[in-house]
């Protein structure tokens, strides 16, 4: 995938990952908790479990995180945006995504 952000739902919240950092999506059956879900296959070889994949957003108005807000957001968060009225946390680097 190239360009834009892949928008996924994880922990009930929307996250945006740079699409070029995602090499694939795989459906998985989890034992604990016993739910089916999706794994994003990241270009660095790691996986990121998500509840659903929503869309590929090409044009997002990204609001970079200020120093004031950065310490409140999960590690690896680098910006915020809005999609269809719902806030998105944006990740910028693949290695950060594994911390989500």
């Amino acid at each position: 995938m190239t360009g834009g952000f892949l928008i996924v739902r994880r922990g009930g919240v929307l996250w945006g990952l740079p699409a070029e950092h995602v090499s694939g999506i795989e459906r998985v059956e989890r034992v604990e908790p016993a739910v089916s879900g999706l794994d994003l296959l990241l270009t660095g070889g790691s996986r990121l479990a998500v509840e659903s994949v929503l869309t590929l957003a090409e044009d997002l108005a990204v609001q970079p995180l200020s120093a004031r807000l950065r310490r409140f957001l999960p590690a690896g968060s680098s910006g915020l945006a809005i999609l269809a009225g719902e806030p998105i946390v944006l990740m910028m680097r693949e290695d950060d995504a594994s911390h989500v």
Partner: protein
Amino acid sequence: MSTTPYLLVRLGESLAALPASAVRRVVRGARLHPLPGAGPGLVGLAEFAGEPLAVLDLAQLLGKERRGARPAVTVVTWLGSGSDRELVGLGVDEAIEVTELDASALALGQALVGGRPTVVVDTERLGVEA
């Protein structure tokens, strides 16, 4: 004696005063999206006027412990100054009224409102790590 308008808010059993000039809107029952893995002090994310808004717990920013449910009211407020200025939500339990405080209250960081001790919030400094 010159006075400045402040929005008086309740944080549990405590009172705090926010400079009215920094307050953009008071929203009851804002749609908040709690963020798993976020640090203490972040109530969640919201949308305000088409922009993402981080909603912080004012009580925790002031070093108080939050007890009970998440804040019921979001005060959309400018923090910082100049190029550092940004809009955030401050979660509080109740927005009470706008009151006039002596101009020296901000420097003191506290005031008496109706005989009750009240934290006077410096919105230019709030949320900045020492």
